[in-house]
């Protein structure tokens, strides 16, 4: 890693700027002096039920107003059930939290997409789907996976509840400039290897703290070739490398995704917006504080073996031996992880049998993810004794998938087809693992107990999730070909 250079100082030398610096500069309300942070304007504030109640309370106590309801939008996602959504929420504390959001949004004039509404769903699926997430804007949400929106070339930050209250009251945030890191992914992904495998490999390379203090910019041939959905998957997990944000410069793929969406600019506004968006890409010759280079040609399907997202290997590899790890902290973390995961060092990853497959979360629950998995499982039967839960990212994704007949493919296979929400990614609703249950999950965190107390999580792509559901052991579509299934 190179030295810490505040972005504003670095750019003043050459005048050449990176994508992140351009977005930052564009939103500067006041420049910090003598160690005080810059004040940055926030274009879009996303709310959900878990991290907002205490912020609304703070606002109320201080007799402050919500400055810009027209730049604020809320959805219900973390607590919402994925079954029986027309009935009252059974868990009383969950119900109270949802009702509190509804009351707060009504009182402060915030647009809310409630359970049952076509735009309800995971906040990071809803923003892009509505066309609210646009290149070059600043986006915040009281949720660490806000980094997802960086796929559009937005500066998107996960924030805490005190900061949520701060944005409510002022539509700004005091922030210290970040360092910049280029993640350059050269080459072409092989069939069966996806955006999820890229980001899992990046995190395994730089570690859960490797991105601390940085905004990551994903670039290179393999990133350009990705759809918006793939770019969102990658930016989504930037936080798992410790980064504050991840970004991809906008291009024709971005514009094509946005055009015609409900809140995308129209007519002359569209042309003005595109003209601005085209100025955002990092200037030729601008420098980053650090760079990581990944060769997409060599990537294989990737999977985690431990209890943080940096503890991953290629699916063709084996559970590592902690004794081989030089760093003492890393070694003890690996020992603890193997104990929790009930895994023996040296076990081939493909021999690990799972009980549950979860296809969903803000990382991988868009219609493209569901399509990719459906294509693999179509006409096949789920492995004996395994359960598979498919949870679309939003009500609209669910409807789109049903229009294509994907729901029937999943149901025929033996999977459960659920309503939209965060679901088993973090188990705030009834969708949880039992103690000791092992899950191949397309979500973003394999922390101890994340998907339910005592549950064991292996992070995978939708393709690996699908192949695993067929074979019962961690598998990729490549293994199906070898089985002669395809």
């Amino acid at each position, binding site marked *: 890693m190179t030295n810490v250079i505040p972005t504003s100082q670095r750019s003043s030398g050459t005048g050449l700027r990176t994508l992140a610096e351009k977005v930052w500069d564009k939103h500067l309300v006041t420049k910090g002096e003598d160690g005080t942070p810059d004040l940055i*304007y926030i*274009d879009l504030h996303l709310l959900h039920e878990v991290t907002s109640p205490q912020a609304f309370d703070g606002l109320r106590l201080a007799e402050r107003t919500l400055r810009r309801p*027209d730049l604020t939008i809320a959805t219900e996602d973390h607590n919402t059930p994925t079954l029986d959504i027309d009935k009252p929420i059974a868990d009383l504390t969950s119900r109270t939290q949802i009702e509190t959001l509804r009351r707060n949004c009504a009182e402060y004039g915030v647009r809310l997409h409630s359970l049952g509404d076509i735009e309800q769903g995971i906040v990071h699926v809803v923003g892009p789907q509505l066309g609210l997430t646009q290149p070059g804007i600043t986006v915040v949400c009281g949720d660490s996976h806000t980094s997802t929106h960086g796929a559009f070339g937005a500066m998107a930050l996960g924030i805490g509840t005190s900061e949520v209250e701060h944005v409510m009251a002022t539509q700004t945030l005091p922030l210290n400039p970040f360092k910049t890191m280029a993640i350059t992914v050269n080459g072409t992904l092989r069939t069966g290897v996806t955006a999820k495998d890229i980001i899992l490999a990046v995190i395994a390379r730089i570690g859960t703290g490797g991105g601390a203090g940085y905004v990551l910019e994903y670039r290179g041939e393999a990133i350009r070739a990705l759809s918006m959905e793939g770019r969102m998957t990658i930016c989504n997990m930037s936080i798992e490398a410790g980064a504050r944000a991840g970004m991809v410069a906008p291009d024709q793929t971005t514009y094509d995704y946005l055009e*015609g969406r409900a809140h995308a600019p129209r007519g002359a506004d569209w042309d003005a917006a595109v003209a601005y968006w085209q100025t955002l890409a990092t200037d030729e010759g601008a420098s980053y504080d650090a760079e990581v280079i990944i060769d997409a040609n060599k990537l294989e399907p990737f999977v985690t073996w431990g209890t*943080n997202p940096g503890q991953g290997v290629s699916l063709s590899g084996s559970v590592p031996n902690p004794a081989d790890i030089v760093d003492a902290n890393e070694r003890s973390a690996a020992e603890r992880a193997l104990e929790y995961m009930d895994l023996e060092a040296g076990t081939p990853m493909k021999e690990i049998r799972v009980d549950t497959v979860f296809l969903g979360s803000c990382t991988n629950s868009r219609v493209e993810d569901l399509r990719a998995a459906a294509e693999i499982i179509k006409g096949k039967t789920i492995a004996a004794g395994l359960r598979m839960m498919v949870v679309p990212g939003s009500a609209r994704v669910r409807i789109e998938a049903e229009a294509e007949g994907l729901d029937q493919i999943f149901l025929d296979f033996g999977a459960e087809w659920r309503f939209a929400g965060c679901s088993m990614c973090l188990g*705030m609703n009834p969708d949880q693992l039992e103690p000791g249950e092992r899950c191949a999950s397309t979500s973003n965190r394999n922390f101890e107990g994340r998907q339910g107390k005592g549950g064991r999580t292996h992070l995978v792509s939708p393709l690996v999730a699908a192949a695993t559901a067929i074979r019962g052991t961690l598998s990729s579509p490549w293994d199906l070909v070898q089985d002669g299934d395809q």
Partner: protein
Amino acid sequence: MQKFTTVTGVAVPLRRSNVDTDQIIPAVYLKRVTRTGFEDALFAAWRQDPDFVINKKEYQGARVLIAGADFGIGSSREHAVWALRDYGFDVVLSPRFGDIFRGNSGKQGLLAGQISEADAETLWNLVEADPGIELTVDLVGKTVRVGDLTVNFEIDDYTRWRLLEGLDDIGLTLRDEARINEFEATRESWLPQTLPARSPESMY
């Protein structure tokens, strides 16, 4: 927020790295709509083990937590800070923090001080050799003192100043309200707005 200068109290040695906020407070406790009352939720899963370090009687009433690197990574939940505060912690020392956690700490009067890996090891050894020994954390001098030993910690100047003065961030920002008004006047008209709600173009 109360002014923070020095804290003297018992320290808990938490010899674990990558302590994510899901461990500090599991998601099931995030359903509450209040800002206090989270002491029972702190490290809820780990505390079920009677041998977990925080459960040991010599560490009761602790005010300082000494943790391994990458403390507070993962979810942005400020509940992690509230749980540490409600339990009684005023200070967390670690070789590296999750960025969002560190930011949240500064807003709630929890001092997140960065120490070197070597100093963390030294402090763990000292505290484990004499459990219940008191540490003094001095925010003015950015030092941790225990017996004859003094080690330094790092914290950014702005957070340090706000903690020392006990200042509220929103109040500070609103002093610049005129600048915010000026900035807003220059924003392009085509930037996204959530209100009024619109339908996709194809439906017009």
